[in-house]
């Protein structure tokens, strides 16, 4: 590794000799077009769109495979390069179908973008295009359209190098080249859907998102996957106030450019689901009845007052944010004086792998423990709480954002409780038993922070609006439709639920019972955390930013 000086488009760049031209240029803000090259994959050098002119080289060189050398002078946009690029585009487009109107990639397609930027706008090719299979289920979650494939081999390299399974390969030759799975194989590795993101065209598409929306009609919000303790950085795609897809966001400290299929598909369907708890409910005569927030919270406060502090237990949640758990812990310990507080574990031993997936299937176990969801001195842990309910010492239970009735032991004794309040976003086992159900917002509807297994604090941002928020006023990302929807339009709408962030509910009940919670926003809660919990000292939402911050 030696330091070298190269000139790219007249700009003098200092870099090291291990870099290729495309890398050196990219690191210095000069973009060179590319289809097959990907920063996280090996270099294939087969698309030829990255041709650049290097002085003293007789022919144009591909920037992705040519290493920089001392004194090299590179030009990425002179006439020779422009003509070569145009020619490459013309070759690629010869057999590319005019599918943009029915192709999900349209709007975020490299080929489409480059056709605008670098192509002459017409084709000299008059013959029939090669026809191939158009609706191939190449895997359980991925669709393949062979006509659209430009044979860049990114998907093959992803499977081989990142997912570590050899599932895809080129077959046939020349313009009949196509992608196939090995005999008896299908593209079903746990990371298979990343090929959809890296495919530069619409050849590989997300089966779940297929035809749901054009990308330019959606808003995208930076957030964090809630599928496990990794906390992959994601973008939430929303249209008409419903989530349509998740895509990974690059963060080299956490998830690189990838996310797992489970996270991509299974962690957000409940936000749009039919079984959402749409508002607070109180059980009257055996059935849950919709009531207003004031009534529900007064009911909880009134009931909790009836018990002595040793008879009340609290269960926080590793699915809830640091803020939610912190306020709950303060409420339990300061307002009610209870020491019985813990959370449920969702570890699946052996449920992890070497790439991203963690055995702990919750996003915030680390954070919940740090902000106080651990039994106080002499307090009961989760097993102790179960025991306490069984022998009648624990008579009231307050749980947030977790289906605690799933706990096999707790399930058996939970009906012995005299009072049971739960925060839930969707109907579940616990809400079927609870005396009061407080509608809490899902991770996609609230601000907050979660702490992953590396002790990295990352931010959740609201992508879907509830009744307590307004998209424009609360600074949520807006699609064009959100901006211009009028009351009489059928679009830009979608259901809005009367749910609230858990910390807000707990703080309000706490205040009824004489507590002093003066938080207006999740950020206020976080500021309080940074003052009282040492690990969080000195952090702010701004410092966490979009890439997160490590705790001490």
């Amino acid at each position, binding site marked *: 590794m030696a330091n070298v000086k190269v000139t790219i488009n007249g700009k003098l760049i200092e870099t090291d000799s291990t870099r290729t031209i495309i890398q050196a240029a990219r690191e210095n803000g000069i973009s060179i077009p590319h289809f097959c090259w990907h920063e996280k994959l090996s270099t294939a050098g087969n698309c030829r769109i990255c041709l650049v002119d290097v002085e003293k080289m007789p022919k144009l060189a591909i920037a992705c495979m040519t290493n920089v050398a001392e004194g090299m002078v590179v030009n990425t946009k002179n006439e020779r390069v422009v003509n070569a690029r145009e020619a490459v585009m013309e070759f690629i487009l010869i057999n590319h179908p005019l599918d*943009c*109107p*029915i192709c999900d990639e*349209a709007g975020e397609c490299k080929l489409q973008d480059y056709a605008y930027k670098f192509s002459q706008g017409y084709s000299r090719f008059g013959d029939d295009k090669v026809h191939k299979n*158009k*609706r191939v289920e190449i895997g359980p979650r991925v669709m393949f359209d062979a006509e659209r494939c430009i044979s860049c081999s990114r998907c093959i390299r992803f499977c081989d190098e990142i997912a570590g399974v050899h599932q895809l390969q080129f077959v046939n030759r020349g313009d009949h080249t196509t992608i196939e799975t090995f005999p008896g194989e299908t593209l079903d590795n746990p990371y298979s859907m990343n090929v959809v993101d890296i495919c530069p065209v619409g050849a590989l598409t997300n089966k779940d998102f*297929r*035809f*749901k*929306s*054009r990308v*330019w*009609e959606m808003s995208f919000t930076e957030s964090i996957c809630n599928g496990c303790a990794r906390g992959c950085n994601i973008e939430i795609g929303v249209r008409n106030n419903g989530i349509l897809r998740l895509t990974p966001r690059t963060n080299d400290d956490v998830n690189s450019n990838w996310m797992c299929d489970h996270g991509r598909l299974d962690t957000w369907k409940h936000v749009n689901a039919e079984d959402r708890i749409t508002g607070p409910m109180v059980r009257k005569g055996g059935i849950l009845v919709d009531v207003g927030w004031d009534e529900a919270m007064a009911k909880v406060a009134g009931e909790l007052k009836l018990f002595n502090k040793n008879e009340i237990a609290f269960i926080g949640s590793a699915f809830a944010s640091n803020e939610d758990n912190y306020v709950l812990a303060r409420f339990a310990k300061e307002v009610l004086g209870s020491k019985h507080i813990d959370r449920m574990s969702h570890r699946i031993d052996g449920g992890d792998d070497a790439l991203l997936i963690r055995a702990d299937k919750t996003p915030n176990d680390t954070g919940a423990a740090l902000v106080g969801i651990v039994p106080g001195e002499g307090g009961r842990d989760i097993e102790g709480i179960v025991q306490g309910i069984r022998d009648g010492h624990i008579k009231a239970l307050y749980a947030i954002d977790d289906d605690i009735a799933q706990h096999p032991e707790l399930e058996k004794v939970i009906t012995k409780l005299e009072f049971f309040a739960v925060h839930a976003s969707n109907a579940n086992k616990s809400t079927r038993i609870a005396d009061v159900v407080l509608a809490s917002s899902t991770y996609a509807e609230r601000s907050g922070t979660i702490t992953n297994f590396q002790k990295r604090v990352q931010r959740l941002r609201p992508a879907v609006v509830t009744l307590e928020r307004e998209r424009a006023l609360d600074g949520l990302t807006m699609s*064009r*439709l959100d901006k*211009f929807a009028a009351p*009489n*339009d*059928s*679009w830009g709408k979608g259901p809005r639920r009367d749910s609230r962030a858990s910390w807000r509910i707990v703080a309000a009940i706490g205040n009824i019972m004489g507590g002093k919670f003066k938080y207006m926003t999740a950020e206020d809660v976080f500021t309080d955390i940074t003052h009282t919990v040492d690990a969080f000292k000195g952090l702010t939402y701004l410092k966490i930013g979009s890439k997160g911050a490590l705790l001490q």
Partner: protein
Amino acid sequence: MEKYLEKSVPVRKKDLSFWQKLYIPAILQGMKITMTEFFKPSVTIEYPEVRTVMPDSFRGRPILVAENGTERCVACGLCARVCPALAIEVQAGETELGKERYPERFEINMVRCIFCGFCEEVCPEEAIIMSQEYELVFTSQKEALFGKDKLVKPIEEVRTRLDFLRKSR
């Protein structure tokens, strides 16, 4: 002000002649035109009993062209994107047909539509075109949301417009 007055030049028009001052010849001239027109055949169309046939270039309300019983539209959403009034909403779905994609829902808010014809111009399938229809009556905003039931028209009914579009391309 002074400055402008300095520059202004008084112009005195010639006085009217005696005949012009009489006015009568001018009145007679006018009467002559009125009388000749009075006895010519009428050009007024007695709407709504009589209706004009609009030229093919006329832009009435947009409709969806159906061929062999299904709409041509592939739900690409380009019309919705280009529509300056944001009148169109398309929800795509998958179909067994060769086109793969079809509009599960297609709605034009006729209160928003300004009859600009951009949707027709942008459509890659000649699937949405401007019709001859201009009589739109609603009693509520809901009624003004035209779904596929009101939009889809068999190709036979709109041939002339399609021919016109081909010619004028």
